[in-house]
């Protein structure tokens, strides 16, 4: 079923919307959650919560792209759950490594943490991604949005793990330079 029809089902308050969403994007959402949580049970709970959030959001919201609408909800819910689990010392998955890597992008200094600055960072990220070659951009997004492991990325793109690691290293360096130029301290 195409996305437009699924969204119509949500708008009509038909519970088939959840069935169709699960059929089409269940595996995708599970992937997003599992990459963060590394637990089938936790991932499944996040995916179910995602459907509930979608049900509550549509209407009035009408997503432009259902896949990423669901993916972003799943990612946020999974990160929240990961934080809770980590506080209970049960956190696993790629997050600790991803956070270590992202720390390399963060210029030194005090952070302002304002909504305006978040907007500036989003704009820098947009420009940064636009300038990256297609494959580098995909690798960056796979690592830091999907939190896929380096090995998995290497396998999908037919590269060695070392090549992926070097690509990511250079991309992080470039992002740090751009953030520094704008005097952003994340």
């Amino acid at each position, binding site marked *: 079923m195409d996305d437009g029809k699924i969204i119509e089902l949500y708008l009509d308050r038909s519970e088939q919307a959840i069935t169709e969403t699960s059929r089409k994007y269940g595996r995708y959402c599970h992937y997003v959650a599992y990459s963060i949580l590394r637990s089938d049970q936790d991932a499944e709970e996040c995916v179910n919560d995602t459907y509930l959030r979608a049900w509550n959001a549509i209407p009035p919201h009408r997503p432009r792209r259902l896949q990423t609408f669901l993916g972003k909800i799943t990612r946020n819910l999974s990160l929240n759950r990961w934080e809770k689990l980590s506080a209970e010392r049960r956190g696993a998955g790629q997050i600790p490594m991803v*956070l270590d890597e992202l720390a390399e992008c*963060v210029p030194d200094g005090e952070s302002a943490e304002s909504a305006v600055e978040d907007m500036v*960072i989003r704009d820098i990220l947009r420009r940064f991604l636009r300038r990256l070659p297609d494959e580098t*951009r995909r690798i*960056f*997004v796979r690592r830091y949005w999907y939190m896929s492991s380096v090995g998995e990325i290497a396998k999908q793109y037919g590269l060695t793990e070392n090549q992926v690691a070097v690509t990511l290293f250079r991309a992080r360096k470039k992002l740090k330079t751009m953030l520094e130029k704008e005097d952003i301290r994340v």
Partner: protein
Amino acid sequence: MNNKRLLYIIGELDDRYIVDAAPGAKRGRRPVWVKLAAAAACLALLLAAGIAIYRAGDASPVLIGGVRREYGRARIIGGDEAEIEWPWEYKTPAERYTSLTLDGREYVSTGRAVDGSLTGKALGVYDVEGYDSYTEETNRLRAEVFESGGICAGRVVAVKLEDGYYTFVRKESDPPKTFGEALDVYDLADVLRFDRFGTYKGLKETGYFTIGDDAAIWEVLNGCRDAECVPDEAWSRGEGDYIGFTVTSDALGVYKRVFYVSGDGYISTNIFNYAYSFRIGEEAAESIISYAVRNGTEIPFEPYTNTLAGTVTDISDGYILVDDSVLCRDRADGMTFRIPTDDLRISRCIDFRKIGIGDLVVVSFTGAIDVEAGGLVVGAYNLSKGTLSDGGAAVPE
């Protein structure tokens, strides 16, 4: 934690990047047209595999750029260089500058030249950008931008680079809602010509034809303006009878794409870079198919790109000479081909691949071979070292 803040902000990336990088993603919609292109031209398979093979087959005559050759079982297999990322100084202007932002809209280069006479109204001077992956820097050039033919500038434009005009197409755009919208926005009746087509049963090609006059086809298509754009999965090539026109248009910046018309009432094409299908109805489709089949003249199948192969016998006077005796049943029947070296795409291969006299090579070209001009190869764009095989596994010579 600061890095955690960055992790959450990354979560709000543009949707297109998230979809593009999704696990098992189809890399946007591109594979759809790659698949379609492969159907129109079997050799696209070789490009996708990154391998160029020149093959004589089992001692049957072959046509190379329109020239008939009598080859034996031997073949030459060459590594294709299409995937090489050339250093900046080895790139042609069209390869260097690949992106343009015009009034907030992103365009990417098709790499295809368009004659200056086909350009329309001047749109202004804009920055074109190119990424040098060796220095990791983005280079910019101020360039004049024009309409391309009568095509809406919101979809395709022509950019004047130092050696000519090149088409740039809009990176992301909504599909035309109807075929009529596609006709108008892309000025299709003026920029497209239907003169070659293949006939198909399921995935099997059953013939390849040329057709002299396409006016009757346009008449039918103009009557299908209300045909709605349908999802990709509405029609697939797997079943039924259909024809596929091979279409090239400089103004659109497309080369040997396909335009299918199916007996069950669909047209499907990749000429807009993405694959779009429209439901035109069985009656209209059938009248196009029957007209084409009635008026078509069968011709040999044309590969997506031509290749020739042989031994380098000389590199001088602006040409590299390649002799194909090694492939002939009778070596005395060998023919010499002349490949101009004033084209950077050829000279860089000689430099970079250290090609010398005595090497076996594979040459890719898009034009024909002019026998009168001493075997001059027109449109040569790639040259790679090859290995000789006697019908079995390739062995380096």
